[in-house]
């Protein structure tokens, strides 16, 4: 009895509520005679495509800067990486792979990911330097930096000298489009590797493998000497200092990894979605990722890979099911969007209110 109680306690009340709600949504979907199998496929797809973005929360929380509300910085870097990859295709860089369109797309996304990691890492270093100057209010500052970078990039999307006809406004305008189709580049290239149907449920095997491999890499890092040191610096800076660790450096490393994962995450997200979304589309993405990690059981000061895997599944799964179900219940309402706002902001609020207790 006691063990069960303890188990439930460590699992956490919010998770239990959300799992119940999630199940309820599926029951409702059944009641309304919706296609539950397709919905399940949606859940899997969204889980895999958001996974890496949420994973970015782990290094940032572990190095002591809290959840990375400024994930849009990494996302912006990733978008630039993807745009360059598209540009390179137009310039004929991948011609030698043309005989095999699959391979050509794969090369395209790998180039995009490598560029995304590079660009985002550089941005992450500067972001880390900034965060080190505002110790104690990292979360507030990162939120505003996250918003600001979106505004800044809004200008950049108009000014950057991209020429590819897929990316710029059609009919001879200047600047990049709102939504760029990836059909000719790397749309769903990961999703379709080894992808298969169970009934009408599509399993995007490739994307899931990429997500879990990335998780493995981050997990291995947390088990390395640098990872252990970084976690100590995050958990107790005074302790780390006594052990001769440069806490600021560790925070920069954590922030950089987090930002780089954000860059890689958005490329994977875009390939699954089939479109690259610029301008204000990424504005609230950071919040959703923070919320997903928190739902999974992470807190302001502690996060594990398992929290990410579970949290992304619950948060994105719920949204994937809630939208069609809500539309069935109340057609033409924006109830699902309201759901999403309540859940994502509610869970962030809950985690912040818990943060005080932890410090005690």
């Amino acid at each position: 009895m006691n063990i069960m109680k303890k188990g439930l306690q460590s699992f956490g009340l919010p998770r239990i509520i959300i799992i119940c709600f999630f199940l309820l949504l599926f029951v409702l979907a059944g009641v309304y005679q919706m296609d539950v199998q397709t919905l399940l496929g949606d859940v899997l797809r969204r889980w895999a495509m958001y996974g890496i973005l949420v994973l970015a929360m782990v290094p940032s929380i572990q190095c002591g800067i809290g959840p990375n509300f400024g994930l849009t910085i990494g996302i912006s870097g990733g978008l630039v990486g993807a745009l360059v990859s598209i540009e390179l295709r137009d310039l004929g860089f991948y011609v030698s792979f043309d005989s095999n369109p699959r391979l050509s797309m794969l090369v395209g996304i790998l180039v995009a990911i490598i560029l995304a990691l590079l660009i985002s890492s550089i941005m992450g270093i500067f972001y880390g330097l900034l965060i080190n100057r505002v110790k104690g209010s990292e979360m507030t500052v990162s939120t505003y930096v996250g918003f600001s970078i979106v505004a800044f990039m809004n200008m950049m999307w108009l000014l950057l000298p991209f020429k590819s006809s897929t990316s710029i406004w059609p009919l001879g305008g200047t600047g990049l489009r709102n939504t760029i189709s990836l059909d000719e580049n790397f749309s769903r290239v990961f999703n379709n590797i080894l992808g298969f149907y169970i009934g009408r449920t599509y399993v995007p095997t490739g994307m899931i493998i990429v997500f879990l491999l990335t998780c493995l890499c981050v997990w291995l890092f947390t088990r390395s000497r640098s990872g252990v040191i970084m976690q100590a610096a995050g958990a107790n800076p005074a302790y780390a200092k006594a052990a001769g660790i440069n806490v600021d450096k560790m925070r920069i490393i954590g922030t950089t990894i987090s930002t780089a994962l954000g860059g890689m995450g958005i490329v994977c997200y875009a390939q699954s979605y089939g479109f690259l979304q610029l301008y204000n589309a990424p504005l609230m993405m950071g919040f959703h990722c923070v919320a997903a990690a928190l739902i999974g059981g992470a807190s302001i000061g502690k996060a594990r890979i398992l929290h990410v895997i579970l949290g992304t599944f619950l948060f994105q799964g719920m949204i994937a099911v809630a939208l069609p179900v809500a539309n069935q219940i109340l057609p033409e309402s924006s109830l699902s969007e309201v759901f999403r706002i309540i859940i994502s902001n509610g869970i962030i609020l809950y985690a912040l209110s818990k943060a005080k207790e932890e410090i005690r």
Partner: protein
Amino acid sequence: MDDEYVLQMQHITKNYGSNQVLYDVSISVKPGEIHALMGENGAGKSTLMNILFGMSMIHSTGGYEGTVLINGEEVKIMSPQQAMEAGIGMVHQEFMLIPGFTVTENIKIGREITTPTIASLVFGKDLEKLDRKKMAQDARQALNTIGMDIDENTRLGTLPVGYMQFVEIAREIDKTGVKLLVFDEPTAVLTESEAERLLEVMRMISSKGIAIIFITHRLREVMDTADSMTVLRDGECVARRTISETNEIEIAELMVGRKIEKLVDDSVKTYDLAGSRVAVSIKDLVVDMPSERVRNVSLDILEGEIFGIGGLAGQGKVGIVNGLMGMYPALGEITVMGECLELDKLGDAIHKGFAFVSEDRRGVGLLLDESIENNIVFNAINIKKEYLSNFGITKLINTRAIRRHAQEMIRILDIRCTGPQQKTGSLSGGNQQKVCLAGALTLNPRVLMVSEPTRGIDIGAKKLILEYLVKLREKEKTTIIIISSELAELRSICDRIAIVSDGRISEILKPDASDADFGLAMSNLRVGGDQK
């Protein structure tokens, strides 16, 4: 007649849970008398004053026994407000002042003089207008009383630190009907000349018939200023003396006292230091650690020596080791076994063979949210790159080796836990301390520095830790520097004990030196009275 005393506290006994902090303490003060209250840290001085001021922590922990009489009448003070009304004021060690306000505003805060306005007629007294002129006059008068010629309209933040104390005194004097002022270590943060000035002011105040309770560690100040004194030790009243009938040596002896408990058997101490070379040489060490400032310390510590550093809190003994470890900015020439230590390079000490067990167990010593095993091996992973196994492209931590080592340490140090994976945050203080020690030992240090190793832990754990330190020295020849507020502990295991006072070494003593020598060294006085 009883009412010749302005304050009498009789047979005061106070327990915090099962912990008795005051037992049958009585003090009494006459009007115009300066009464010194002395004792080591933790002797019960602050608790006694908290009772006098009716602080909430006293009443929320079950109140106290005994009686408090003011002017011969029994009172039960339940809140600081009530204490103020009864005419008791306090000059705090940390200033209770607002830097952004003017001197006048600081003096009159909470007791502003106001005139009615239209708004206040409707909404009540809170909206009355400040009568700044009258307030300034009052402030001026209070400042004049203590002979301060600062402008009452200056912003407090622009004044030198030494003046703030006087503003605080002026505020207390300005309160109407003040009969008794408590000075809680007022000279601790002042320079010598400012302290001199403060003592003068205290004499001036007392000559106006206001009684003063003067809490201090400095013997000389007591001898110069006070009329009478009470010494507390371990929560008990040891003695009450009239200053004219006593001397510094007697007071020092009373403060330290011989504690009978012997923590470690002499039989385990067989190590012979003769012919040992110098392990750690410290020259002109200065450390800027807030409230534990080290002003100038030079020491030579021999290889295999157990070297104690004692002294009262706030005098800088903790600062010495924290400075060496690079926790706070430090200057000085340090050599370890002939190697020079770069103080401004973070972690240089730990790389050159120092290990440190911090006095702040929960804040600096441990990762509370991590398991015992991770806490034990962390520094070894970090500094010595041990407990890692090679996987070609990367090295990962070797969980199995860590587990084995942690279990070994748990056995040796008798850490009471459910297993190596228990989080250190849920351990008791003594066991947490053992984990800290285990972590330091895992580094196989050449020099082990333990700061307040037995603070807040039970006697069993205390004995085990001290005995282990002695054994470690016998076996590994490790040089051990131990910092402690408990003299008894230092005297039972150390080869030599340095007493730190005011950021300097006031004396290096053998453990069998007399109580008076220790007491005088702590109060920064030598026999004969030449102040260092």
